[in-house]
């Protein structure tokens, strides 16, 4: 057969010289190393945000779910108070809407964190550490200081003093204070939602962030209208 002829001819080649053996060892070693490193790099990339499975602890997805839960929970607290203590039906209605929808969203995000095997609260008490892009830096939030990333207070959050004052009010004063603080709270959450809508890798997280932007955007207008109608002025928006 022709193939056997060819094989016989190759077999008749002279054995390689010693330098050739060294070269072959070198080539094989480098090839093996290349394959191993490619595998390691590939494995590492799969484990990064954007890879399959649970997102990393420092990912946008995990950070957004943790921090937005904290942000939402404060709105839920204030909305529940307004629903219980306001006597204005329009205020009670929007408070009820905010309370129930945001509490539901907190449950959704905490459910994800559970499935991802991540803690419900951000570690070490700092917020917005996961916002490392130019948008966050321009706003002065997020991981601006590499040595100590994150912020102590998220934008739009009300202080204990503001919360205490609100609880001491009633009637029109309570309604105005609630609408003011909730309007600022909504404005303050926008930055994180926009960031997550852009950079989250999990489509469910992205979708929730987009949905929040849409519904809270509309709600912000309603809050402003209700506030103006009750003779109140919006507070300075959060930076």
């Amino acid at each position, binding site marked *: 057969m022709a193939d056997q002829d060819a094989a016989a001819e190759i077999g008749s080649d002279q054995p390689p*010289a010693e330098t050739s053996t060294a070269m072959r060892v*070198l080539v094989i070693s480098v090839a093996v190393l290349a394959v191993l490193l490619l595998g390691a790099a590939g494995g590492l990339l799969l484990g990064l945000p954007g890879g399959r499975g649970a997102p990393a602890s420092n990912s946008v997805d995990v950070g957004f779910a943790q921090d937005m839960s904290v942000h939402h929970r404060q709105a839920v607290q204030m909305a529940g108070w307004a629903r219980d203590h306001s006597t204005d039906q329009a205020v009670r209605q929007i408070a009820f809407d905010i309370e129930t929808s945001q509490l539901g969203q907190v449950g959704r995000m905490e459910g994800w964190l559970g499935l991802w095997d991540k*803690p419900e609260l951000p*570690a070490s008490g700092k917020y917005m550490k996961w916002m490392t892009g130019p948008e966050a830096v321009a706003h002065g939030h997020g991981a601006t200081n590499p040595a100590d990333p994150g912020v102590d207070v998220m934008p739009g959050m009300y202080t*204990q003093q503001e919360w205490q004052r609100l609880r001491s009010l009633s009637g029109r004063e309570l309604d105005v204070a609630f609408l003011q603080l909730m309007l600022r709270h909504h404005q303050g959450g926008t930055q994180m939602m926009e960031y997550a809508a852009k950079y989250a890798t999990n489509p469910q997280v992205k979708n929730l962030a987009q949905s929040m932007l849409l519904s809270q955007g509309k709600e912000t207008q309603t809050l402003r209208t209700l506030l103006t109608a009750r003779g109140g002025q919006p507070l300075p928006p959060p930076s």
Partner: protein
Amino acid sequence: MASGKNSKQARRNASAARAAAAIKKPKPWGLVAALVAIVVFAGGVFGFVYFQQADKQAKLDALAPFTPSQSNQDPSKQIKGVVFKDYKPQSHVSPADRVAYDQSPAFGGPHDGYWAACMGNVYERPVRTENMVHSLEHGAVWIAYHPDKVKDDDLDALKKRVVNQQFIMMSPYPTLDSAVSLQSWGRQLKVDSADDERIDQFIHALRRNQYTYPELNASCDALGPGAFDPDNPPPFDATPPGPDAKPMNYEPPAPPPSGQPGQPQPQPQPGSGG
């Protein structure tokens, strides 16, 4: 056949070329260069990503062993000095009741139906234990401190762990037998100094840890006056609980039995309303 002759010719030529090569084989520099390029590229990607990730994680590494996860459900087991007790949840007493707690400060057992607000609340005065214990059931950590032993900078250091945080609260506890005592449902850690590194470990391990608190996703909000008022919380009672206090194994009375199935419920008499 012409084609067979041609292929035989080609093999002969190739054979001659190989023989020549065997005599003076050129070094495969192209192959070496290609492989080196791959190694440099893959090594670069690996090194960059690895060190970037490692850098980001470094800050959290100190607390990493205390992060709750499926494989490490109760990281407080690794903290020296934590006391564990099993308590049955959901036993509620009324605002007028006392509970004869088995620990001081208590960290489980029957409690008031109204929980203390635990949305980062810093209580300046001692608060009734029956309310504080209910917050533990909701996943909160309670920092109790001795008002004579923890002051100024130490007090500020504790407050910093509470303000702007959720599912955590702190209050003075005048009869405390240590400087600081941390409570989570069924877990307690007493330390002699506000600088103790185990304070952060305890908080990190147990605050809203879904594996260790009984009532998942329960709230830290309060209903205000008439229920639990964070601005005017019921005060701590340092006196002994007394014989009327509810015992640790207290079971709230069952609701009054409703009518038997098939039996008509008593109807309000016409005209008797008032």
